[in-house]
Structures are given as C-alpha cells and as structure tokens.
C-alpha cells in the first residue's frame, strides 16, 4: 500500500475509533493540565520570591533554563531510575512540570519588573504592606505577561507529553508509537496521523482557552 492509499483509509479509521482517540486526547489534556497547574504555582511562586533579588533571580532562571535543555527522552529515562517513580503518569508529570517552569518564571519576573515604579512607589507611600503591594498591585498588573508564559509552557509540553507514551504515560503519544510499531501495515499511517492531529488540535484548544482566561482575568483598565 502506498502512503496515499493509507491516507485514504484515515477517515474510515477515525470514524471507527473516534472514542479511543477522544479518550486518549482527554488523558493527554489532563496530564498537561495537572503539570501546568503545578508548574504555574511553583513558577509564579519562584518568580515572586526572587524578582527583587538579582542573584536569586539569575540562579532560578539558570536552573529552570537547564531543565529545558535536557532532551526529553533522556529525562524520561533518567526519571524511571528514581526509586518510587515507576512508569505511567507520575514521571511524565514530573518531567512536564520541569519543562514548563522556565517560561513561567521568566515571564513572572519580567512582568513584575515591568510594573511602572511610580505605581509601586505610590502604593508604598499609601501604606500598602509588602504582600498587599505584590498581590493587589504588582501581580494583577503583571498578570497578562504571566499568563503568556503559562500559555507558551503549555504549548511546549503538549508536544513533549506525547513522548511520555514510552513510559506508558497516558495520552495521544500511544497512537503515534502504535502507528510507528505497525510500520508497513495498512493502518500504520492513519493511527499515527490521528495521534499527531490530536496533539495539534489539543494545542489549538489550549490556546483558545488561554485567550479566554486572559480576557476574563485582566482588568479592563489595563487591556
């Protein structure tokens, strides 16, 4: 069968297996969602703790930047050697969280440092405490930038999550590896293609989601 003939079998495959594809897509979204929530809390937290202290800030950015340079297969391989980690969702979530940190920390720091010093000074002069200034003034003003970081991280880890299938991690990667494993058989391409297209579709869904969240959570005064 030529690839073109296989491609013609794609609609049939999808029609017969859409429930499996959807199930895997949902599992994929959950793994990405859980990772991004953890990375969001940790990343924004690290950003808030370090943005006023240059050495600490640089250290955090360097370490999280280092995470992003580790090839994902190598990181997965490394993680399963850690006792108690095992296979499945757990090591995948740990890896994805590590990959998601840099854009979130970086944008949190950039956003907080980008707040007009006059606004911070007037808040200080009015007697807002350190925490009040951060949570009521600085973070809300940095928020659109922070969310952009979260969005970039999400798009990065959606792709990396697909590779998690080699650790038996849940998600659309299963279809891609399955298709590759059946190389030469009639359904190899349709299976792999449904996994690939599923990942792309998921990316678009997350992007739209973050657009809506940004709109809803940003004050009209700074839009």
């Amino acid at each position, binding site marked *: 069968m030529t690839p073109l003939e296989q491609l013609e079998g794609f609609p049939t495959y999808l029609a017969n297996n859409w429930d499996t594809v959807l199930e895997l897509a949902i599992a994929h979204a959950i793994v990405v969602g859980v990772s991004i929530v953890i990375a969001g809390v940790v990343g924004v937290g690290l950003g808030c703790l370090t943005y006023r202290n240059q050495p600490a800030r640089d250290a955090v950015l360097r370490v999280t930047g280092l995470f992003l340079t580790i090839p994902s297969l190598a990181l997965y391989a490394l993680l399963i050697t850690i006792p108690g980690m095992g296979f499945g969702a757990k090591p995948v979530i740990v890896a994805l969280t590590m990959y998601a940190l840099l854009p979130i920390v970086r944008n949190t720091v950039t956003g907080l440092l980008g707040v*007009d010093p*006059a*606004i*911070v*000074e*007037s*808040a*200080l*002069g*009015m*007697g*807002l*405490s350190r925490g*009040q200034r951060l949570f009521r*003034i600085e973070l*809300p*003003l940095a928020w659109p930038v922070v969310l952009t970081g979260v969005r970039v991280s999400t798009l990065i880890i959606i792709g990396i999550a697909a590779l998690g299938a080699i650790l038996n991690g849940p998600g659309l990667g299963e279809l891609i590896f399955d298709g590759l494993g059946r190389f030469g058989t009639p359904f190899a391409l349709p299976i792999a293609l449904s996994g690939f297209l599923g990942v792309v579709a998921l990316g678009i869904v997350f992007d739209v989601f973050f657009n809506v969240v940004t709109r809803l959570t*940003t*004050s*009209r*005064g*700074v839009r």
Partner: protein
Amino acid sequence: MTEAMIRLEQLTKRFPGQSEPAVEELSMEIPEGEIVVLVGPSGCGKTTTMKLINRIIEPSSGRIFLEGEDVTAADPDQLRRRIGYVIQQIGLFPHRTIHDNIATVPKLLGWSDDKIRARVDELLETVGLDPSRYRDRYPKELSGGQRQRVGVARALSADPPVMLMDEPFGAIDPITRDRLQNEFLRVQEDIRKTIVFVTHDIDEAIKMGDRIAILGERSVIAQYDRPEVILSQPADGFVEDFIGSGASLKRLNLARVRDYELGDWPTGRVDEERPTLLAKLRASDKGAILILDAEGRPQRWLRPRDLQRPDASLSDIGLVVEAKVEPQATLADALNELVRSRVGSAVVVDKSGVYAGTVDMDVIMTAAEAMRKAARADARASMDAESSAGQVR
C-alpha cells in the same frame, strides 16, 4: 506659629557608596495647617528630604516627629496611612477604577463600604469631578489634569492630617497647571492640611507656599520663611540667585485680586440707549465702557467711536472681553491679562461670571506700593523682636 505638626531633628541620610550625605543634619518644624514648600536646585536633596518624612527612604540618623509623636521607629505602613502622598507621575493604579483607587487607604483601614462610597463621591466633588461620570472609569480614560485631581483625592481619602506632594503639577501643561494650582489652593482653604510640597520652580513655591524653605546642597536650609520675606529680604547670595531677577514682579504672585480695591470702569447694559452709554463714558476718565448682559456678565468694551456707529447692533461692535480673572487669582495673573487686553484693564468676574470690578495699572501700582510698605514694616518688626529676644536671654 502654631504647634509643629511635623518636626525633623538633625535628620541625615547617607546613601551607601556616596561620600557626601544626601541630607545633612536637617532640622525644621512644619506648622499645622500650612503649605511648606521645599524648593532648591536639582539634586539638592529636597525629594529625599520629603521621602524621609514618610520613611520611603529611611534616615541614617536623626528623628522625625508627627503630631508630637516620635515616628522614627514606628511601623512604616501604619505611619504612611496617616500621610497623604502625591507624586509627579501620580501613580494611579491602572487596573482599578477611580472609585477603587480613591478607596485604597480607607479599605486598608477597614471602613464600611457605605462610608467609603460616600467619601469617594465627596472627594470627587471636592476636586471638581462629577462622581456619577467618573467613579467607574479607569485611569487611562482620563486626561492628565483629571488624573492629577484623582491623585489628590486619593491622597486625601482617609483625611490624613499631613500631605506630602512631590512636584504634583510638574508633568502638566502650563495652562492646566495654573488652574489646578488655583483649585488646590481653594480646596486647601477648606481642608487646612499640613502640606509639604516639593518643587524646583520658585514661582510655584511663591504661589503655593505659606512658607518656603530654600534648600542648598545636602538639603541645608538657606532660608526658611514666609514668601514675602524671602522676596524682600533674601538671606544670602544663594537665595538671591535662586529667586532670580524680578522679585517685585514675583511679589505680585503673593497678592490676590480679592484683597485689593478694584478699579472702577464705567459699565452699561446691553439694552441701554447709545446716548446714555456715551454720556456715562464721557463722565468717566476712561477710554471705554464695559457692556454687561442681562445677568451682569461682561460682554464687550465699547470706545467712543464704536458708540458713534449707528448702523451696527451693540452686540457686534467694540472689543470682546477676553481678559477675565476670578477674585482668587493673583495680581500677577491679572497683570498678565491686563497686558494682553487692548483696553488696559482685566475684568474681574465672580464664579458665575458676573462682573465684580476691574484690575488696571493703578490697582497694580497701589498694591505694589502697599506690599513694599508692609514688607519694610515686617522687617523692622522682626528685627525688633530679635533684638528684644536677645536682651531677654
């Protein structure tokens, strides 16, 4: 002098890595209910001095007293809630509505929502912004002048006894600045706050200040006195240079139109007959008659030759009255208008635009003479006081 609201004792600020202190052993008393202007060349430490008061900059040594209480080591956030703060860039919170901006400190102090809403509306009225129109807007939807007013309202929100203002009108165009200064002085007449006001502009200092402290390097006080004294008796060459030339002209900034007897130009109503108007004009020694509308608002200046033109209606001939000032304007404002006017007289109108009198060259000259005499008498009195105080000691 009433009891000092703010007292600074030997205040010094050294920034790390600088050999010279930014502020050195500054002691001064700021009396209750007055505007004290700190003025001096750039880099003299006037802004640093102001920020030492609410401890945005912590002093290296010395003490700060607020209402008699030593606040040098008090909780800075609590201290700052008692001190209104206005900076040049205003620093409104862009993500919050005008209401929420003004409500910031009352919320921190735990006021009820009803009380806060009433207070915000009251303050918006005070600074001349219609609450129903502006309350729910965001800062970006306001003009620079309006933002500045909101900044002042926000600083006043919790009714602090003290306000610090760092070049509050510095970033505003000259026309709006002048209006905002006048408005602020009017508001201050009612609220009587103790205000520390920083500027580098001696003219603004003379206009706004009940007292002026002229600061030299390291915030050393070159002279601290009432503006009229500083203008008539500068303490040294530095002060003299800083005031610049034209001290007598500057003194006109200290005098308000309402405090002087206004000039008397002939007036007529728009519905009066020409011969009557002409007769009134001839009976005076002036070159023009001022025509008022039915509500008494000045409309036009008519000269004899205008009145001799029978063809045109009274509302089309003569000169439109352009030079107008309000009673709280300074004589300097009036002089400026007067020079602009082709008749040689600035018309004084009250708040609703009704004619109240005129300021002409005679009025200015009489006022200048009176001020000169008063300054001389003041100087003599203070010298007498000093010498008698010396004898007691």
